């Protein structure tokens, strides 16, 4: 019974990781990836590793989605200008 919160956190991580793989559009994948980062941080906290959760929170919830979104935007912009010059 005491492990119920661990089970819930594990299920959240498994569900969001599966969703991150199943979603195909990169922009939407970044959204699911952000949720996965938050779920992982909660899982680390539940497993009594708050320091790991702290860094996971900083990297997973803001930095990784920001990098992915910037890359997606750059690719889209380059594709658009490439079409115009062609």
């Amino acid at each position: 019974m005491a492990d119920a919160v661990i089970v819930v956190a594990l299920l959240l991580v498994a569900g969001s990781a599966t969703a991150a793989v199943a979603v195909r559009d990169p922009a939407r994948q970044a959204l699911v990836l952000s949720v996965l980062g938050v779920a992982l941080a909660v899982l680390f906290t539940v497993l009594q590793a708050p320091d790991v959760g702290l860094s996971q929170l900083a990297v997973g919830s803001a930095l990784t989605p920001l990098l992915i979104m910037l890359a997606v935007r750059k690719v889209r912009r380059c594709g658009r200008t490439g079409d115009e010059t062609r």
Partner: protein
Amino acid sequence: MNGWILAATVVLAGGGAAVLWGVTSGPMSRRVVAQNLATSVACPALLLLAQGYDRPAYVDLALLMALLGPIGTLVFARLLAVDLAGDRPRAGRESPACRANDGNFASGPAAWGPTWAAAALGAGVVVAVCVATGPGRAMVKLLVTGALLIGGNVIASRALSGGFEGVRGG
């Protein structure tokens, strides 16, 4: 297992299921709102866990999440502005009168009912943990966390529903 951890489990299970359902289906605007909901559900859960494990240091996690969650949502709101504007009904945004009296908020992607529900969850959890903690520096930290959580929630919701006209586009 004490009541705090049980409450955290319930919050995580209910909120997590809603977030997973919202972030994997529906239009882009709903997905961004669900991503914002993830932080505003996980932050009260972390506060409850900190109280349940009787480790006040765990409040740092909730503090960082209350700070970084709205930043992440604002990143999405800025970089996905074109997609979000496509989902939004345009009639309310074109006329200055509607913009002035916030008439387009009810029909925007970030409806204000769920926003205030999430804010009420955060406020309730913060008040409960404050009562359990008692006055002192820890209570000030909890109050700062709660203020950041609710303020960030409202700001992110406003940004998603097109409240900040000046920063549109990117």
